[in-house]
């Protein structure tokens, strides 16, 4: 049995994404066979399963295709400047610690221009869930080389093939101090959703890399077909190795993709470390930032 649903019937038919997505902004702008929508769907599902208070969830994105996520989620959301989602999210979280802040952005945004902020936020174990969609390219601007583009892959700024060694993102995050590190592809919907659900309940800098297809730029410029071809490549070339040594997680062009959860430790978050330290140094004189934030309330 199947039913064709008209767009105006969606809400009354209780589409499962309705609580999480701004239905008045659908359909979204992502290309046919782009993987970002899948990652967003899994994140939305994880929010539902983890039963967090959606009023306290804030989503911050940077610029790029994945950066458009902030505009589509039905939570307090911010579409900030290129590369600066992490410090923006830092300010948001420290200003009102009870917020559950997710940074949802792309490889170029978070690791290229945002690289410095990435390593420091991880180093501080800032209490942020970071979902990085890695499509190995700068998609929105027309397919330029990214810090994650595999060797030999073509892009619009490396038309003869990339010769720069790319980052190994789980290794980078783990080395900098992230307390939770995982990688999936957008084909791994069940595992990805479980990882998101688990990560939402953890604290600290939780980093999940999701490898996803970019059909219009990465696949096309490298003659890899379209997003479906990339998804079948993921399916035929992955290996789950939880707790793998992150040094072994390098990605080459169309090589095997090692996925799984690599780091899951308990470590004091920035706020926890700060409060413990000041309590020790100042005793009763310490006045912590209350969870509901530092907003001045009227003293009329």
């Amino acid at each position, binding site marked *: *049995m*199947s*039913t*064709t*649903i*008209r*767009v105006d019937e*969606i809400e009354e*038919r*209780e*589409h*499962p*994404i309705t609580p999480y*997505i701004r239905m008045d902004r*659908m*359909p*979204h702008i*992502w*290309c*046919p*066979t*782009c*993987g*970002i*929508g*899948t990652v967003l*769907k*899994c994140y939305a*599902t994880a929010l539902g399963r983890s039963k967090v208070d959606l009023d306290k969830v804030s989503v911050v994105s940077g610029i790029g295709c994945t950066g458009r996520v902030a505009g589509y989620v039905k939570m307090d959301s911010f579409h900030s400047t290129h590369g600066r989602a992490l410090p923006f999210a830092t300010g948001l979280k420290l200003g009102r610690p009870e917020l559950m802040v997710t940074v949802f952005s792309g490889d170029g945004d978070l690791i290229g221009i945002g690289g410095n902020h990435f390593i420091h936020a991880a180093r501080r174990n800032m209490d942020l869930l970071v979902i990085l969609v890695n499509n190995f390219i700068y998609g929105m601007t027309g397919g330029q080389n990214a810090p994650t583009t595999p060797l030999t892959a073509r892009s619009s700024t490396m038309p003869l093939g990339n010769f720069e060694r790319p980052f190994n993102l789980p290794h980078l995050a783990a080395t900098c101090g992230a307390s939770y590190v995982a990688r999936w592809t*957008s*084909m791994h*919907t*069940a595992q990805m*959703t479980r990882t998101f659900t688990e990560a939402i309940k953890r604290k600290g800098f939780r980093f999940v890399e999701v490898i996803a297809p970019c059909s219009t730029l990465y696949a096309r410029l490298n003659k890899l077909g*379209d*997003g*479906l071809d990339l*998804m*079948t490549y993921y*399916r035929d070339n992955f290996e789950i190795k939880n707790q793998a040594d992150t040094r072994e997680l390098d990605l080459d062009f169309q090589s095997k993709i090692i996925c799984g959860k690599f780091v899951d430790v308990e470590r004091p978050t920035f706020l926890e470390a700060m409060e413990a330290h000041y309590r020790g140094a100042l005793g009763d004189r310490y006045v912590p930032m209350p969870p509901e934030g530092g907003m001045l309330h009227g003293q009329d």
Partner: protein
Amino acid sequence: MKPVEGTESAPQRKPPDVERIRVPRGELCIITDWCKGCGFCVEFCPRGVLANSEAFNKKGYHPPKVVKSEVCNHCDLCEMICPDFAIFTVQLADGASGEGGSGEAR
């Protein structure tokens, strides 16, 4: 699978909970106008419920067609993998044949 040596004459065993556990049945709901014809649901449905079609939606894409609705077991994979949120399944009431009638919303 070969029987364990010495037990060739043992009868086939049924799982003890086979009467209690019901495989769910799903009804597919497709928002054809949101579909961009990516083919993920067709390719990844583990039971082959969907196939590519020649039909057009409003934007000129080919949305999938349902070819084996009776084997849909509401696994949700199509719903999760569709990048355009254009398909989801609704669990059918116990005992429903999956070929008619309305389903219960989950």
